[in-house]
């Protein structure tokens, strides 16, 4: 498959990646900056979320309104969010507007005003975001699972806490911006109908003088994952389970993806969907997914069932996960490969999908994985790869968090 990817790392450590897609008119710009919520000061959890929101409230010569106008005039749909490991800035627009969009992003990253008078509004906004989680049980159960599964600070949620949000001051915010938003470790990726030399020159011009900063560590402490039931008077009980897996950089990564494919992501003929929903009618939503951090990976399995049926749902899910190691049909592997292949090809129709994919590749692997290489990995998946994975990373000792009217029992 034809692919046109370029990369360049500036002396200050900023890496620029660009994938040219000449069959589209648009482009997506994406920044991954090493300032995720795992770097929030422990007494000010929510700092990263506040910073992400404040970046757009004035930057360079423009105040909040002028900055918003500038983006809107270019037709750039933009967002600033904080994740666990990185802060993300992104924007989608017509390809010809990318150089101007980069100027605006540069202002936000390098010269945000961070106006003191806006801090209270942002704190109020984020506290309401936190409150809104209580009305989203499917999101809430995942956050509570991660909190108990991962060691600190990897177990944090970007929303922070009410105390943490309120403890942030303009001084601590500006300090956090100086410390965490740095070029060394930042990945700028662009995908779309762009010109590489133009983009590279522009990025160099805008970010070449960004001073490097000390690399901060978020060394995880030791912890033992704990299961817990959280009470809520809802119609359904939400079930969320975590198992140890491998990160993207691990040789068994595609085998892990294959296992999740057989269990869930190949479509409605996958095991969990078939056994829990199709055959027994136990739920509407049931799925498994893979998550990768830099140094570790996790497989999740989730479902929601009416309280009186939730135990059976949990039992069936765990039985399916455990029985994976006992055998996989060739047809299941073929279906899993077909779904991965379709995803790979359809990704090429989306500038945001490609901008995200090349940035993730670089973050985890230090290089962009070509379509051909990915296709080879997919083609190389077979029954033994998945069975070997299921033996090496068994679905035993689940960490379980439930949210609903009554607790569930983990079978022995």
């Amino acid at each position, binding site marked *: 498959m034809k692919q046109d990817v370029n990369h360049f790392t500036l002396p200050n450590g900023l890496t620029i990646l660009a994938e040219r897609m000449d069959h589209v008119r648009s482009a997506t710009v994406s920044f991954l900056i090493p300032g995720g919520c795992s770097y929030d000061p422990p007494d000010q959890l929510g700092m990263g979320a506040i910073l992400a929101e404040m970046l757009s409230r004035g930057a360079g010569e423009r105040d*909040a309104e002028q900055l918003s*106008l500038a983006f809107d*005039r270019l037709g*750039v749909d933009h967002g600033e969010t904080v994740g666990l490991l990185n802060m993300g800035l992104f924007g989608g627009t017509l390809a010809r507007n990318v150089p101007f969009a980069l100027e605006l992003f540069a202002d936000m990253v390098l010269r945000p005003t961070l106006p003191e008078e806006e801090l209270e509004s942002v704190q109020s906004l984020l506290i*309401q975001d936190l409150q809104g989680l209580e009305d989203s049980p499917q999101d809430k159960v995942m956050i509570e699972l991660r909190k108990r599964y991962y060691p600190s600070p990897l177990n944090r949620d970007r929303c922070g806490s009410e105390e943490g949000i309120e403890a942030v001051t303009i001084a601590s915010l500006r300090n956090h911006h100086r410390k965490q938003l740095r070029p060394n470790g930042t990945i700028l990726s662009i995908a779309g109908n762009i010109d590489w030399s133009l983009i590279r020159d522009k990025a160099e011009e805008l970010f070449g003088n960004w001073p490097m900063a000390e690399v901060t560590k978020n060394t995880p402490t030791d912890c033992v994952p704990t299961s817990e039931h959280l009470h809520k008077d809802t119609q*359904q009980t939400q079930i969320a389970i975590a198992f140890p897996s491998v990160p993207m950089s691990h040789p068994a990564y595609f085998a892990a993806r294959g296992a999740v494919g057989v269990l869930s992501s190949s479509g409605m003929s996958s095991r969990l969907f078939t056994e829990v929903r199709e055959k027994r009618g136990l739920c509407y939503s049931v799925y498994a997914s893979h998550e990768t951090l830099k140094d570790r990976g996790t497989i999740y399995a989730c479902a929601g069932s009416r309280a009186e049926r939730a135990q059976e749902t949990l039992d069936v899910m765990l039985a399916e996960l455990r029985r994976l190691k006992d055998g996989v049909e060739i047809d299941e592997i073929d279906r899993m490969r077909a779904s991965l292949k379709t995803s790979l090809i359809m990704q090429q129709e989306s500038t945001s999908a490609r901008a995200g994919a090349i940035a993730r590749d670089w973050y985890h692997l230090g290089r962009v994985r070509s379509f051909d290489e990915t296709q080879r990995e997919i083609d190389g998946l077979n029954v033994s790869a998945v069975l070997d994975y299921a033996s090496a990373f068994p679905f035993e000792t689940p960490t379980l968090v439930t949210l609903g009217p009554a607790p569930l029992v983990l079978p022995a």
Partner: protein
Amino acid sequence: MPFHTHRLANGLQIIGETIPTARSVGVGFFVNTGSRDETTPVSGVSHFLEHMLFKGTPRRTALDVNLHFDRIGASYNAYTSEEATVFYAAVLPEYLATAVDILADILRPSLREEDFETEKKVILEEIGMYEDMPSFAAGEYAKKIYYADHPLGNTILGSSQSIIDLTRDQMLGYFNSRYTAPNILVSVAGQFDWPEFIAMIETQCGHWPSDAAVRENLLAVPGAGGNHRMAKEGVAQEHVMLFSPGPAAEDPLRYAAATLALAIGDDTGSRFYWELIHPGHAESAGCSIDQSQQSGTTGSSFSCEPTQAAENLEIMLRVLAEVQKNSITADELDQAKSKISSRIVRHSERPMGRMRSIASAWIYNGEYHDIDVELNRFESVSLEDIRKVLERFPLTDTTVVAYGPTEVEA
């Protein structure tokens, strides 16, 4: 982009847009039936039927349907709205024939009794899941209040009781009356061969029944008016919706109305953003138009801390009154158009996006327009058009519906 149309002898309509640079193809079967076509005893039947189409045919069991889709790596799904039930798949070009074979097959389902009883449980689970999402429950309640007795206010999911009571025979009766060839559109976009596609559809669907289906209650709805609130135990935030009449799907003013709604309530840079989100008064706030056949609404909404709701409602009503009186500025109009055109271009880059756009244009207006025509229509929206929208669809004709915790008085 080359556009094609063809009508089968039995009345089934086929449309397609060839996109030479596409790497995939999207295909959809659009059945002109939804919750607005239901009577009270069969409330939820359109949506339950949508589920049942995946549960098997004379040639395929439920598992076969899933296996066959998954073997070709199809990305597939279906949805039910007030007006349409849609079954679609995105596949690599070499699998189009198989995708069509499966889709056409499931459009004549067996509705086996055992599958019916099992899937009934899934629907009840889905109802439970949405009941646990206050923002969704708020929308359902608001819709019911606004439309009163008009079927556009019908719940799509049905109630637990109506689903429990529903029989397989009732579903079959509904299917026979609604899933007829003249009531179905097949849309395709991306990488495909048109003559081959017609031949596929002719073979698979040529024998489908040709009786016409009728849609009743094709009147514009003025809206119930008034202020309403529902309180529920355990809800954390206040969810407030304001509806007023808007342009129907056939109305030429729909472009101006969509642009106006964006200027009022887009996620960034809109009136609601500056007045409600930016100062931290509400967690979310928006404005959009919803278009149906012969009827439409303009809807504004916000979610916030319950003690903040009364003040936020005042702010929202004030903004709407302001715009009603003085319209929006030329700058606001330009910014809205800039955003829209960027979004249209990006949305059109996936075959599935185009497949759905062309279907919508055909179903409601019997027309086709390529991307550049679509962009042009938005580009030519003028302040005069905005004034016409405000005249015909006053933003101040609101029905206000709130949904929040029992612990706080409205």
